């Protein structure tokens, strides 16, 4: 990711801040694991109990996270991601998030079509018929491969139920 280092003049989210958040999150994971493991027994009873390893590993994780935090503050401050880059990432992430959300309600086929349409219109410069073709064909091909050929059922919504699937 050498090319990702932006010029220092550009404004963005502080790397130190993100390092701190990640370290704290890792410590949180470690704390959860410790709590769960000691609850069930993390000792040595003719061999390790089922919490023995998770507990030891969680301690190691906590210490490593602490060390990371410390070294993050010793390092020179830099930009984790510029606001301009963040805007670009959000352009992909937000539709993706909506896509995953939509799968639960309208099934994967329709959601995929909508997601692709949104993505291609927002970020691409395609002719309308190209977009339409891609949006219609991709879910159909997926349906043919997964449902009809390999008999792997994918999440379906009300429309598919209406069509008898």
């Amino acid at each position, binding site marked *: *990711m050498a*090319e*990702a280092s932006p010029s220092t003049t550009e404004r963005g989210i502080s790397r130190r801040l*993100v390092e701190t958040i*990640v370290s704290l999150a*890792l410590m949180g*994971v*470690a704390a*959860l*694991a410790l709590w*769960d*493991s000691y609850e*069930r027994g993390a000792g*040595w009873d*003719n*061999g*390790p*109990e*089922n*919490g023995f*390893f*998770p507990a030891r*590993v*969680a301690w*190691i*994780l906590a210490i*490593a*996270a602490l*060390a*990371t935090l410390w*070294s993050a503050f010793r390092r020179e401050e830099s930009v*984790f*991601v510029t606001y301009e*880059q963040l805007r*670009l*990432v959000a*352009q*992909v*992430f937000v539709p*993706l998030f909506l896509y*995953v959300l939509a*799968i*639960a309600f309208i099934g*994967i086929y329709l959601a*995929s079509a909508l*997601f*692709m349409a949104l*993505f291609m219109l927002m*970020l*691409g410069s*395609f002719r309308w018929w190209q977009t339409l073709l*891609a949006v219609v064909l*991709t879910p159909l091909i*997926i349906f043919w491969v*997964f449902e009809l050929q*390999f*008999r*792997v*059922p994918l*999440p379906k919504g009300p429309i598919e139920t209406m069509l008898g699937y």
Partner: protein
Amino acid sequence: MDDLNQLLLGFQVALTWHNVLFMVVGVLLGIVVGVLPGLGGPNGVAILLPLTFGMDPTSAIILLSSIYWGALFGGAITSILFNIPGEAWSVATTFDGYPMAQQGRAGEALTAAFTASFIGALSGVVLITFVAPLVAKFALRFGPAEFFGVFFLTFCSFIGMGRENKAKIVASLALGFLLAAVGLDTISGDLRLTFGTSELMKGFDFLVVVIGLFGVSEILLTIEEGLHFKGKRAAMDLAVVLRTWASLPRYWATLIRSSVVGMWMGVTPGGAIAASFMGYGLAKRFSRTPESFGRGEVEGVLAPETAAHAAGTSALLPMLALGIPGSATAAVLLGGLMIWGLQPGPLLFVEKKEFVWGLIASMYLGNIAGLLIVLATVPVFAAIMRIPFALVAPIILVVCAIGAYTVESSRFDIWLMLVFGVVGYVFKKLDYPLAPLVLALVLGDRAEDAFRQALLGSGGNLSVFFSNGLVSTLMILALLLLFWGPLGEVRKRIARKIGLSRPAPMTP
């Protein structure tokens, strides 16, 4: 030379025109299931299995095992082109394969991967052909302590001191172990780290995590730099195949080492996934230029692919000879064998000679057919890099979502994929290495199970890990590899202090 005669007879069986046709169909189908994450060899085999009941068993197993070869070949394609491993054993292929594609060397990487797969598979088949009974006996010597030894060795060969911050390597490894521990614990039969939620009960599936960490996060990183693939236009002609082949003899040591590692892991059965990581780790360890690994080193593609394919092929040996499946695909094949009334096990080699040797002959032929078919597709796949990002990216993301879902038919896994996509994005930008996390996730719980099984048997006595020659050798080898890096560093530092540091010879 009785075996050779048998083999020739086998070739006669396998080379009938309809069996060759089945082989080609099988390989093509295998490539398709191998390419799509979420569909794998087991799907392909399971789907065709019912169709084969009416067939002659030899033709049926040729068709089904060809799917297996195709899937092994196909797993590398998406790893190299999009950083999304189509199969779990091609994760290590992404480490160098994807950087190569970004540098416009997709054709070279694909050729190297396919050829390496072929070499690995071939060594596995030779193993099956000539030493099957011997090797089958060796596999019986592996108890829990020995299994732990194998996993420990894999960890130690892979976890060197990388370029990254050491605390971050450890954090990544520890997180992988914790994720692996979530779900039902085999030894106690209790649920761990699920906090009462039924979604966490099934644990974190490796493939879901990897699709997020590698595939989704890569798209997010790509978009930061504008709306295009970093990949330059790849060479489109078949000449790239010949050029790559010409460069391969240089890496003979890596190829042989990986083949041996793979065969050994396939038989024991440590599995193709562990083999690919170990192959990669050892290649880096013994390389003159370890720092070039992870930045588009062709050896980094050759090593894991050879090992994975050698292991995948050798995994059929325990299945045939002992009736233990070395992989999920082998397990489904095993079910098929029984449905045709064939009882896998040592007697299969005696009672059903023409079947066993027909199958072995088809392994040679199937792999040759597979290599020719995938090489012919190199230009096609390399051409994908020319499609505009705004079209390919959503298709990749849709395929990722389907892949995440199909692993366990669970919608929650699609959310997990998204979460791990963000985790991967942040981790990559903060230089947390992802490979240790993935390795710990794959092997962590199996290593823990083996450790605890061994101690249950010994009544809690740790000396079980040094109780016989085999396990002691494994453990000592592992410890040697673990301290190889630090020891080398100490030696260098001492050398520098004394002032003996002279320029290293530039040419080998």
